[in-house]
C-alpha cells in the first residue's frame, strides 16, 4: 500500500519536473492555498468578511463552470439555484427553525431537480446554445418576479434571520466571520478537488468536453449526450445552491432582489469567462477578481451603490474585449504565456498543447446559429459537394 503511494508520488514529482508549466502552476496553487489559510491571522474581521464574499463569488463561478464551461451549457438559470439555496435556508431555518444544514440540503435537492428538468426539457429542442441561454434567462426572470410577489419568501421585503443559535451545527457565527471564511474555503477546495477527480477519472467527466465541442461526434462515440448534459446541469445547480445558503446565513438576509436576480446569473457567466471557462482555476480567479475590483473601487471612494455597477461595467468590457480578440480568459492566457516562456528557453515543455483534462481550450460552444461569411461559404461548398450534414 505505502509503496504504491510512494511510487505514485515519485511519478508525480517526475511529471512535474518534466513539465515546467505544471510546476509553476502547482507552486502558485500551493502558495495561494497557504495564503488563503493564513489570511484571517493577518486581517481584521471586516477584511475576513470581504474575503468570505470573494470565496462565495469564486465558489458559485466554479459550480457554474461545471455545466457552463466544461459542458458548454451557457446557463442563466444558476442564479435561480443560488436563490433557491438562499431561500431554503431563509424559509426553513429562519422562519421554521429547521437546522440550516438540512435546509441547505433541501435547497440543493430542489436545485438538482430544477437543473435536470431544465436540461431535459431543453434537449427536446435539440442542443441549441442560444435558446438555452434565452430560456434559462426567462426562467430566472420569471422566478425573480414570483419571489417578489410571494410572501413565503418575503415578497419585496425579503426575509431576515432572527435566530440566536451559533456554532457549526447551526451554521452561524455572529461576531467573527472567520469560521464562515474557513467553511467557504473548505467547500471551495472540496468542490475543486472533486471536480478535478471527476473530470479525470470518470467517464462522465471525460465526456463533457466532447459534448461541448461537438455533440454529434460525442454521440457517435457512444456518449449519452442528453443524459450527461442533464447530470451536468443537475450537479452544477445543486452545488450552486450551497453558495446561496452560505451567503444567506452570513448576511442574515435574503430577498428576491439580493439573491435571485438575472444579474447574478450573468455575473457568474461573465466572471467565469473572464477568468477562463473550461479550466479549474479560471472561475476562481474570476470570482476573486470581482471582489478585488470591488474593494479597489471602494477604496477610491465611489459610493457603495455604484461599486457593484462599476464592477459589472468593468467585467462586461473585459469580456467584450476578450471575445472580440478571440482570447480565452486570464488563466488560459497565463498558461500559454508560461508555455511560450519555457519553450523559448528550450525547456522541456511539450511542443503541442497540453492534455485537455484541464480544458485549456477555453470557452467554446457548439456551432451556433450565427452564420459567418466564412462559415456560410464553407456550408455552400459543402452543399455543392452533396453533403447534407
Amino acid at each position, binding site marked *: 500500500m505505502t509503496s504504491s503511494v510512494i511510487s505514485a508520488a515519485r511519478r508525480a514529482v517526475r511529471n512535474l519536473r518534466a513539465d515546467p508549466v505544471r510546476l509553476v502552476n502547482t507552486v502558485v496553487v500551493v502558495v495561494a492555498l497557504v495564503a488563503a489559510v493564513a489570511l484571517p491571522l493577518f486581517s481584521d474581521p471586516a477584511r475576513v468578511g470581504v474575503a468570505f464574499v470573494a470565496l462565495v463569488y469564486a465558489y458559485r463561478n466554479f459550480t457554474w463552470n461545471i455545466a457552463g464551461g466544461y459542458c458548454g451549457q*451557457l446557463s442563466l438559470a444558476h442564479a435561480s439555484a443560488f436563490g433557491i439555496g438562499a431561500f431554503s435556508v431563509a424559509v426553513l431555518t429562519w422562519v421554521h427553525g429547521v437546522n440550516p444544514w438540512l435546509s441547505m440540503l433541501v435547497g440543493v435537492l430542489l436545485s438538482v431537480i430544477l437543473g435536470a428538468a431544465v436540461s431535459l426539457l*431543453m434537449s427536446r429542442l435539440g442542443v441549441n446554445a442560444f435558446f438555452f441561454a*434565452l430560456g434559462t434567462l426567462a426562467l430566472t426572470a*420569471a422566478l425573480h418576479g414570483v419571489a417578489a*410577489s410571494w410572501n413565503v419568501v418575503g415578497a419585496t421585503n425579503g426575509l431576515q434571520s432572527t435566530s440566536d443559535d451559533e456554532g457549526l451545527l447551526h451554521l452561524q457565527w455572529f461576531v467573527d466571520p472567520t469560521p464562515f471564511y474557513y467553511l467557504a474555503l473548505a467547500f471551495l477546495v472540496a468542490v475543486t478537488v472533486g471536480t478535478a477527480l471527476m473530470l479525470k477519472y470518470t467517464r462522465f467527466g471525460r465526456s463533457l468536453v466532447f459534448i461541448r465541442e461537438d455533440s454529434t461526434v460525442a454521440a457517435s462515440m457512444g456518449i449519452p449526450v442528453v443524459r450527461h448534459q442533464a447530470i451536468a446541469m443537475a450537479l452544477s445547480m445543486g452545488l450552486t445552491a450551497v453558495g446561496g445558503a452560505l451567503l444567506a446565513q452570513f448576511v442574515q438576509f435574503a430577498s428576491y432582489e439580493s439573491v435571485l436576480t438575472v444579474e447574478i446569473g450573468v455575473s457568474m457567466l461573465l466572471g467565469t469567462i473572464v477568468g477562463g471557462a473550461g479550466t479549474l482555476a479560471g472561475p476562481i480567479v474570476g470570482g476573486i477578481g470581482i471582489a478585488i475590483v470591488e474593494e479597489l473601487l471602494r477604496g477610491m471612494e465611489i459610493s457603495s451603490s*455604484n461599486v457593484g455597477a462599476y464592477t459589472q461595467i468593468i467585467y*462586461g468590457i473585459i469580456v467584450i474585449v476578450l*471575445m472580440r480578440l478571440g482570447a480565452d480568459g486570464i488563466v488560459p492566457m497565463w498558461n500559454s504565456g508560461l508555455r511560450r516562456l519555457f519553450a523559448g528557453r528550450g525547456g522541456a515543455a511539450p511542443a503541442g498543447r497540453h492534455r485537455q483534462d484541464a480544458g485549456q481550450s477555453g470557452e467554446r460552444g457548439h456551432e451556433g446559429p450565427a452564420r459567418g461569411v466564412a462559415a456560410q461559404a464553407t456550408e*455552400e461548398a459543402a452543399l455543392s459537394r452533396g453533403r447534407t450534414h
Partner: protein
Amino acid sequence: MNATLVQVTLTGLLQGLIYALIGLGLYLIFNVMRVVNFAHGHLVLVGMYGMLILEPRTFGDYLLGLVVMALVAAAIGYLIERFLIEPGLARPGHSQLVITLGLGIVLQYVFQVLFPEPFESIPNPYPWGEAFAAFGVTISMPRIAAGVASLVLGVLISILVYWTRAGSIIRACAESLSGAMHVGVNVRRTYRLTFALGAACAAVAGGLLLPIQPVSPILGLELTIKAFVVVVIGGSGSLWGTAVAGVILGVAEALGSVYAPGSLATSLVYALFFLIILLRPQGIARRVARA
C-alpha cells in the same frame, strides 16, 4: 366591469404594438444575421434615456428627438455590428451571445450610474390633449399616439423590406446567404444596415415609450425578453407575424395584470415564453437549428 375589460384590452393592444416595433427590430437582426441580440432591450433604453436627456418641451422637439434617437441608435448599431459582432461571425463558438450579453450588462450599469434616480419619465408631448375618452374607456394620448406610431413605422418598414431593392437584398440574405453571395450581394454592408435598422427601431420605440412608462435600467433585460417573445411567437413568416405576436403579448400582459399583482404578471409572461420555446419546435427554432 365590462368597460374596464375593454379598457385593459385596448391598453394592452396599444402597448403590444410598441412591443411589435421592438420585436420587429430584433426580428430583422435575427433573421438576417442569425444573431441573438441580448442587448436589444438595452437599445430601447438608449432611446428612452436619450429622449430623457433631450427633454423635449414641444411636440416639434419631441418629433425631432425621435429622429435624432433613430439616427444615434442606427450609428450605435452600426458600430456594434461592425466592430463587435462581425469579426466573431466567422469563428466557431458563441462569442456573439457572450458579447451581446456583456454589452447589455455594460449598458444597464452605465445607465444606472448616470441616472441614479429610477423611474423618470417625460410629460405628455402631444398637443392633442391628455387623454381620449369614449364609450366609457379612457386612454392616455401618449399611449394612443405611441401605438399608432408604432403601427405606422411597422408598415413603413414592411414597405422597405418588401418593396424596395434594399429590402429585397435584406430578404435574400435572410433566406439564403449563399444564394445572396452568389448574386454578388455585399453581405457585410447588409449586416450593418440591418443591425442599424434594428437598433433604430428599438430606440424609436423607446422614445415613444417614455411618456407612457418611466424608465429604469432593469427594463433592459425585461424588454429584451419581451422582444424575443414577439420574435418567437411571430414565427419566421412575414413581418406581420411580429405585429400579431406583439399584440398578443401586450394584451396577455394587460389582462394578466388585472388578475395578478405587478411582478407576477410579468413572471407569467416569462414562464409562458419558456413554455413556448419548448413547445414550438418549428418556425424560428428549426431555422436556427438548421443554420
